[in-house]
């Protein structure tokens, strides 16, 4: 979708055009459920410079009924097994209270433990599969079998080779073992070793950290940045430093656990708005400003909006232009978590801020992780210099957590230089473009086959809805038999009726790999009856000719 008219210094110069006619054609093109364009007034038509098409199709009613039926059967048998276990008719494999504690308050009777014991255990072999190679576009799995229905596993000693990897967050393909690519990393590893043995504030700030922070700030176009050793800890340890009691946090319904944990640890008041719903957010903002704090009606000390760039379970992209206009109108702060979107969207991989053509000064706190697109580990927080200086002294991570390993920092530096073009090649830009092509191709083919896919057309996270609990296990196992590794998710990470398989498209996937996966999905979709969509057209032979035109990009 990007027209690379001028690419210099790794930055793309956008030409701001009103694309109203494109917007209209975007609505008519798909006769599915399109959310994105507000029909009232022209003002929102100019906020979005390109079409914003998201799909959240609902399945037919019988699917929901059958899903509940399936869970009902599972629950009934769960009670039966619990009864047998309680009366000694069956061996107990999971933790129970000791004999002396039988009269105490029960520990393991709540629904979550019941669910884990009786439903999750039965299909547990689809998760925690140990891999024994780099998680590139293909990887090796250790084969394991179970003799007692997933309570224990044993390894047969064989490895399943070259399984196509559709589950790793390897969006730009930087998880590689190519010796040439990792030359600088090996040099740094030999120079610094692996451990830092200190925190940032004591003796853990190396010249590598200064280098990487300058590079991150330059990459994002902000004044300063700070890096941390762990992505989850970046959120959960820094939000308490930024907000405290008497502040208000407005957080999206489907925010990641790290954001929720950080918000709860801070002690501020938390209010939730509906996922990506700007009316809900505006109502909350108005109530906050009009009524103030709950009992004293004083003004809030600060109001901060927590959103993510790409939501990893839905594949939806945040409506950044509208949020920024709301935040300017009501004078709130914005914290943008770009864990999945940095490197993955945007014309040169600079995240949702570039994707919408906005300036990074509009967002107060830019957060992201290096785990997903850069093949490393860790997170960063970027913004104005005063903010980052404040965090250097007040963040829990800076005071107590070990700083980033220098070899990992070097991997991030080389990946970022590759993206920005500073290593002298255009490989970075090629990877970003390849990811965009792969994403669009994959999503288009899945839509045409008739699956229900959630999310924005440009997001590399593709959730495919399975709905019924019986199909979760069947899908994952059959895909592994066809040598494709997928991640399936059920309750409690998703709503109980909407279990899904989540695909992560990578720039390292070749067209042949994607075609293998798509053919397998086609076959499996017919066999398991997963093609619930009511809006697709069936695949025609002309389709294959169309894809050959696509290859001549």
């Amino acid at each position, binding site marked *: 979708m990007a027209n690379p008219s001028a690419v210099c210094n790794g930055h793309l110069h956008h030409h701001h055009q009103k694309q109203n006619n494109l917007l209209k054609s975007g609505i008519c093109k798909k006769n599915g459920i399109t959310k994105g364009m507000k029909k009232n007034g022209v003002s929102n038509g100019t906020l979005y410079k390109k079409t914003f098409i998201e799909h959240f199709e609902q399945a037919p009613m019988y699917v929901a009924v059958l899903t509940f039926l399936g869970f009902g059967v599972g629950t009934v048998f769960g009670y039966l097994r619990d009864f047998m276990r309680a009366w000694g008719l069956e061996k107990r494999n999971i933790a129970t209270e000791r004999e002396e504690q039988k009269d105490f308050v029960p520990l393991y009777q709540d629904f979550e433990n019941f669910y884990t014991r009786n439903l999750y255990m039965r299909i547990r072999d689809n998760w925690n599969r140990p891999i024994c190679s780099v998680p590139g576009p293909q990887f090796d799995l250790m084969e394991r079998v179970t003799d007692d229905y997933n309570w224990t596993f044993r390894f047969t000693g064989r490895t399943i080779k070259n399984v196509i990897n559709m589950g790793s967050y390897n969006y730009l393909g930087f998880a590689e073992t190519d010796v040439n690519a990792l030359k600088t990393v090996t040099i740094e590893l030999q120079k610094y070793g692996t451990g830092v043995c200190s925190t940032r504030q004591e003796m853990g700030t190396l010249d590598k950290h200064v280098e990487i922070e300058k590079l991150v700030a330059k990459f994002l176009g902000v004044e300063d940045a700070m890096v941390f050793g762990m992505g989850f800890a970046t959120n959960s340890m820094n939000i308490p430093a930024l907000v405290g009691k008497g502040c208000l946090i407005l957080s999206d319904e489907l925010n990641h656990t790290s954001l929720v944990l950080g918000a709860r640890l801070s002690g501020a008041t938390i209010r939730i708005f509906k996922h990506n719903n700007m009316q809900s957010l505006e109502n909350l903002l108005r109530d906050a400003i009009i009524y103030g704090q709950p009992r004293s009606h004083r003004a809030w000390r600060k109001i901060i909006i927590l959103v993510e760039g790409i939501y990893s379970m839905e594949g939806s992209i945040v409506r950044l232009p509208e949020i920024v206009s709301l935040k300017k109108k009501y004078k709130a702060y914005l914290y943008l978590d770009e864990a999945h979107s940095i490197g993955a969207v945007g014309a040169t991989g600079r995240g949702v801020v570039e994707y919408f053509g906005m300036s990074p000064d509009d967002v107060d706190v830019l957060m992201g992780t290096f785990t997903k697109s850069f093949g490393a580990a860790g997170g960063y927080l970027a913004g104005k210099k005063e903010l980052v200086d404040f965090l250097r002294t007040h963040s829990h991570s800076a005071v107590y957590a070990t700083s980033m390993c220098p070899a990992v920092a070097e991997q991030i530096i080389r990946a970022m230089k590759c993206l920005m073009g500073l290593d002298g090649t255009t490989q970075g830009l090629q990877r970003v473009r390849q990811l965009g092509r792969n994403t669009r191709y994959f999503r288009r083919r899945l839509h045409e086959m008739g699956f229900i896919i959630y999310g924005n057309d440009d997001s590399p996270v593709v959730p495919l809805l399975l709905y019924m609990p*019986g199909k979760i296990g069947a899908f994952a196992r059959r895909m592994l038999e066809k040598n494709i590794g997928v991640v399936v998710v059920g309750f409690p990470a998703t709503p109980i009726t909407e279990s899904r398989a989540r695909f992560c498209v990578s720039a390292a996937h070749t067209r042949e790999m994607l075609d293998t996966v798509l053919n397998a999905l086609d076959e499996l979709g017919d066999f398991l009856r997963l093609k619930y969509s009511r809006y697709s057209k069936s695949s025609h032979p002309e389709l294959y000719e169309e894809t050959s035109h696509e290859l001549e990009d």
Partner: protein
Amino acid sequence: MDIKRVKDYIYWLYYQYLLITCSYVLEPWEQSMFHTITVTVVAMVVYTAYVFVPIHVRLALEFFSQIFGGQPESTVSIMN
């Protein structure tokens, strides 16, 4: 060749039944128990339908035809 296709189709139908009712995840003895209960319930429903539905339908038809037809039939003949 046809027999194989029919067998494959029947196996596919059985597999769909397993997936929909979530008995795919159950252990074999639980599956047998579940199948027994299901087959019993379905058999009872079919038997009840076979015994009761034709008589009730016939009675209903006669009742409605009496209202709309209007011919004075003797009530003795209906109560068999």
